[in-house]
């Protein structure tokens, strides 16, 4: 399996290298769908210039990256293109290995359950075969590397690619069972963009499941492990933040990065939901609605963790998707990360209801973004409402996609327990409805 992956990596790097050299690169790096104020390369360069002049990179309100990132590029700015290509490669390989491990686990569990005869007789067709699962890791890597969204993001040198790499490494370490590395990487991801904070819950659930510790609030072993993991996480977060302070010698970065993420002062249009809403709003409602909008990202963690506590990997997917939909400055690079997981759930296809509609919507929206941007900004004949309508539709499509996968996953689990052909009490055929 190493050969196809290598080939895939070579193809992906070639495409990126060609695009980096073409005249398209400049055009792409200006697109609001691809870069946000948070991760635009232009702003990183500005921050580097300020740093070289001995000024705080955060003075001037242009640069909003974390201090570690700017020091990374301080040394590698001449090789930036290579850094971004390597980051994409790392993400793909990490996802590949994670899904491989995950599939092995799933298959082992399925074998035990089969041997102990826990599945109803009529749902054998729902079980997964090794043949079908063999190509899934490769497909995951392919979905990430060859996704036009990832390619655009990489060619635009959006630092989103690096964040994705950290999250992918975090997933890899988690699935490999290394609590220490997982905690550190999660802290790093949180440090980068705050929102991955919500991945704490699935990671914790995964480790508990792996160590056969039941989720029981009255058990000391549960609390012991939770505190241990939380300690690793918080400890590394403190260390990283402290390190940033010592690198820069000031706390400027806290308001400039995290304040910027939370209070959404930059209303440049993007594919998210924030900009239009806050551009239209009266100033005195702002605080309230910022709370309402930001809580969306964190709020779903609790119900989802309860519902999916047996399936932490699926929960990770759900959380990443929710982050990329509801975060304050989303770009297509974020969307690409959770879309890479879709082949891992390919066995759910038979339960998906709107996948066709959703893929049409997402496809059409991707084509309409630049068209409506052109009409609004260049031709002047349309206005922001046109663009926002497409943003809304795009997010509607994403939400429908995620909820569809959620439904399909739960339904498959339901069938695995209750049998595939459900009967009502009076013997007629029953249908499952998500309510």
């Amino acid at each position, binding site marked *: 399996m190493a050969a196809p992956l290598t080939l895939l990596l070579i193809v992906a790097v070639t495409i990126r290298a060609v695009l980096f050299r073409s005249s398209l690169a400049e055009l792409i790096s200006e697109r609001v769908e691809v870069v946000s104020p948070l991760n635009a390369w232009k702003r990183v360069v500005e921050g580097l210039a300020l740093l070289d002049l001995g000024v705080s990179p955060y003075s001037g309100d242009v640069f909003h990256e974390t201090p570690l990132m700017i020091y990374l590029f301080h040394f590698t700015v001449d090789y930036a293109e290579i850094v971004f290509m390597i980051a994409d490669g790392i993400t793909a390989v990490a996802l590949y290995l994670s899904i491989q491990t995950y599939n092995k686990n799933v298959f082992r569990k399925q074998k035990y359950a089969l041997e102990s005869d826990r599945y109803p007789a009529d749902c054998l067709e729902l079980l997964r075969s090794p*043949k*079908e699962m*063999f*190509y899934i890791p490769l497909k995951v890597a392919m979905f990430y590397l060859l996704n036009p969204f990832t390619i655009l993001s990489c060619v635009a040198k959006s630092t989103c690619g690096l964040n994705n790499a950290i999250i992918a490494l975090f997933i890899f370490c988690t699935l490999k069972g290394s609590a220490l590395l997982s905690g550190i990487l999660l802290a790093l991801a949180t440090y980068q963009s705050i929102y991955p904070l919500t991945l704490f819950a699935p990671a914790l659930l995964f480790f508990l499941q792996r160590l056969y510790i039941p989720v029981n609030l009255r058990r000391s072993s549960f609390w012991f492990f939770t505190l241990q993991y939380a300690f690793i996480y918080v400890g590394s977060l403190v260390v990283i933040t402290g390190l940033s302070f010592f690198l820069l010698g000031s706390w400027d970065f806290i308001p400039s990065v995290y304040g910027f993420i939370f209070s959404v002062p930059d209303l440049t249009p993007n594919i998210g939901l924030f900009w239009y809403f806050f551009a239209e709003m009266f100033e005195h409602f702002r605080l309230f609605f910022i709370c309402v909008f930001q809580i969306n990202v964190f709020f779903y963690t609790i119900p989802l963790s309860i519902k999916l506590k047996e399936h932490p990997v699926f929960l990770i997917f759900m959380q990443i998707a929710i982050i990329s939909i509801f975060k304050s400055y989303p770009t297509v690079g974020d969307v690409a990360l959770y879309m890479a997981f879709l082949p891992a759930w*390919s066995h759910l*296809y038979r339960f998906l*209801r*709107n*996948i*066709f*509609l959703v893929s*049409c919507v997402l*496809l*059409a929206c991707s*084509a*309409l973004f630049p*068209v*409506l941007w*052109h*009409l609004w900004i*260049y*031709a*002047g*004949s*349309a206005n922001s409402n046109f663009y926002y309508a497409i943003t809304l539709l795009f997010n509607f499509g994403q939400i*429908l996609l995620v909820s569809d996968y959620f439904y399909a996953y739960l339904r498959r689990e339901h069938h695995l327990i209750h049998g595939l052909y459900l009967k009502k009490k009076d013997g007629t055929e029953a*249908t*499952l*409805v*998500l309510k």
Partner: protein
Amino acid sequence: MGLLSDPNRRKALTNLLTRLNAPICMVCYLAAIVWFMGLAFEPFTLRTYMSENAMGSTMVEERFSSGERALSLAKEFDAHKTKAGGMPVEWLVKAMQARGLEVFTQSFSRKLPFPDENKERYMVRGTNVYGILRAPRAPRTEALVITAPCSPGNSNNQAVGLLLALAQYFRNQIFWAKDIIFLVNEHDLIGMQAWLEGYHHTNITGMEYSPLQGRAGSIQAALSLELSSDVITSLDLILEGLNGQLPNLDLANLFYAFCQKLGVLCTIQGKLQRNDWDTAEGYTHAAQTMMLMVLKQACGRSWGDHGLFLRYHIEAASIRGINGFRHYKMDVATIGRLLEGMVRKLNNLLERLHQSYFFYLLPSLSRFVSIGYYMPAFGLLAVILLLRVSFPGLMLHVCFSVSLQPSGPGVLTVLTPVVISHLTGVALYLLPVHLQEMAVEHFPVSETEAVVLTAVAIYTAGLALPHNTQRLLSGEGTEQGWKVLKLTALLYLAVLLGCTALINFSLGFVLAVTLVPITASMTPHMPKALSALAMVLLSPAFTILYCVFIYQELIEAPVSVSEGWMLFLSVISQGILDHALYGSLVYPLLALFVYPCWLMFWNILFWS
């Protein structure tokens, strides 16, 4: 959401759509045509009205009276033009300076990719002359432009004369709040392009020009003037710009309002307005006017010098004097007053024109159809494509079964035709211009003919490809294969037409009307010869041919078949030139996207 999540209702809906698919599609198509034709019916249209406050209530009094001077200036200009054998730069500079303007010149040169036979030019070299009247009343941050092209022969002299007379008159007024730029451009659109690129410091078409020495503020609006005779009977308003872009409707309203006020006969598309909308003739007249606008907009070229301004977010229109309706006559002074009024109202603007519509069709100058009314006509056509996508019901499952197959020949069967048809498209886009030298060497044709005939040849050669594709696949095409290809092609066409219609409704609609019926019904099981003929007759090239004939019919200059063919060839060469010179997008759109998409359906027909 109930419809999406309740399985029973979903099933009912799917059943209904599957069972009644063909009838629904037919009804949609007919409804789209009827809806579109209904747009010209007066009770279904809205009366135009001035939306912009700054131009509405403030009345201005026009006092321009130096019509005679304009005509004598025109004669003088004519004499100097003949003497100089082109633009009389020195005379113009002196004349403008004498009227108290800051005068500058800009020289430019452009080598066309191949000779333009319509206008007989290849190496173009020229000079633009412009004078700026500085605003006495305000900081010089905004400007208006009045242009008159310096055309070869003795046409358009009166426009330049009037321009100079207006400059002299405006110089004595004190109420200007915006700088006014008087521009005389040589070589019509090429000069205009050079001037605009110089003004905005851009270079998108590879034009060589000297930088502008003087400039005013950001340009708010522009008027282009075309007058070719001393006596004018009516004024024609031209709105269609590059890529089918239109100026704000308020500009048309402004023109119409002043025509009404001064009692000037005004036309659009060269057609007078009629008042008998309830008779068949009245309706036909309105429909013809609207169809002309649709055809002009669809072809994506700039129909007057104003068209290039629109790209820079500047509202602009051309006003052309016509000497054709014998009973009405007006002197140049009246036109001067009309322009004075329009410029003074534009001078009152506090912000860019934005209140009124940007997307509209005009069945007459006093009536308009807004985007909300005409989009359903296109929407009904797009719905057909989406219905056909869902039609065989199994399309969806086909798609996933293909993506689930581990070895992946399913994806490959679709990918090969898609790639090959797009490569053909790229060839159609690149080769005609690049191969002209070779073609001229080997065949007894001129460069222009070489370019056009190469394009036609590649287009035709593309039709022979599907058989080769099948060979390349090395094997029989499966039943599933063509279904997946059709699914891809239908989605592709729907997205493509949707995007086109948003930017240029007319082009999207014209393409949809011809492409949708055949593509929606295409399967490999149809009688080959008959459906191949139908497909060719409804292909993009034939659409252009039909448009040429219909256009000629509508402007009441019907042509014979051979003349039509020659016109068709010249339309193609003009399309390629427009793309190279001004960046019109119609040719690349047709060559790189629409034609490959059509080839994919052609491929389905010959799926073995």
